[in-house]
């Protein structure tokens, strides 16, 4: 079953006007500090997966502000691992996903063009930390490309520990 041509053209045009990079830099609420607009992938308590919000460091605490009541705070000193990675993903947020799904019905698989147009590269920041009860948490964020290394530097300066690279972890485990 195919969509009418006019609908396909409208979908394609919509896709082209979507922002390629939906993550940006803003300012922390109530402060002059710069805050990154990030996507929370998973890991923070009481914050939904894929929730967007501001990530900033204030008074030695990493904060994620997703608006309304979606706020999470992690003291930098409780962080015992900061890892930076990257991922190619789809830009355009929820709208992009809807447009791309609708374009599946386009004839001759022409909807796949959107895959090329909407792809975007993001940095992945992973932190591991222990809460007051000693429980281990891992929080993952998608950041604008090239920003994760800066956040890592800021966290380390605020008292976070770097965390061992996987190979070193293996050696330590073997020695135990």
């Amino acid at each position: 079953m195919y969509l009418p041509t006019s609908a396909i053209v409208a979908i394609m045009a919509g896709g082209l006007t979507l922002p390629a990079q939906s993550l940006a830099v803003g300012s922390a609420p109530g402060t002059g500090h710069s805050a990154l607009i990030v996507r929370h992938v998973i890991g923070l308590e009481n914050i939904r997966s894929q929730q967007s919000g501001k990530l900033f460091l204030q008074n030695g605490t990493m904060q994620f502000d997703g608006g309304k009541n979606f706020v999470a705070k992690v003291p930098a000193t409780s962080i015992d691992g900061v890892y930076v990675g990257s991922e190619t993903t789809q830009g355009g947020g929820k709208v992009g996903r809807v447009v791309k799904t609708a374009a599946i019905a386009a004839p001759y698989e022409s909807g796949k063009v959107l895959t090329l147009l909407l792809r975007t590269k993001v940095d992945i920041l992973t932190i591991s930390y222990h809460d007051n009860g000693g429980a281990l948490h891992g929080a993952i964020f998608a950041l604008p490309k090239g920003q994760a290394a800066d956040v890592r530097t800021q966290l380390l300066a605020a008292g976070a520990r770097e965390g061992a690279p996987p190979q070193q972890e293996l050696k330590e485990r073997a020695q135990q």
Partner: protein
Amino acid sequence: MRHSSTLRIAGFLGLVLPLAMAQPGTSPRTATKAKPSKLSASAIQIEPIEAGDVTIPAEFRFAIYERLIERVRKDGTFQKVFRSGDHEADKVADLVILRTTVGKFKEGSQLKRELTTVTGGTTVDVTTSVAARDGRVLLQNDLSGKVRFFGENLGVTNDLAKRIAKRLRESF
């Protein structure tokens, strides 16, 4: 005529029925239907993912860990689901511990997947073991998570967590 056939059936039944009744547990039908007894525990502690000799990015390891906690809590198989290192878990007598070790990891490409639909899949193979406090292994499974068509590579962690949680649900 009718009398002789009735006799023959009665004779056949007389021969077969005592045999069937003598060994009721060994009939193949009963054997295949017999379900293994379920394990029992009120709480589980989930340990972080061990990479073994495999190189797997930290985000994948922690995403599997977090999604596992989320899934097992949502399923309600256990009254309590503890994170690794949680001091509260020390007070639970019948606690079981879930350990996951990565055996193989292949990071694909979302772009390739969506353009070709046959290449670019991301897969992660793991061995999970559930042990009692004294170290006795109660359950061990080899499972794998995959992303074949749509979604980010990190989606593989969701698929894997779903499979592990299902196996726990079936066993407890």
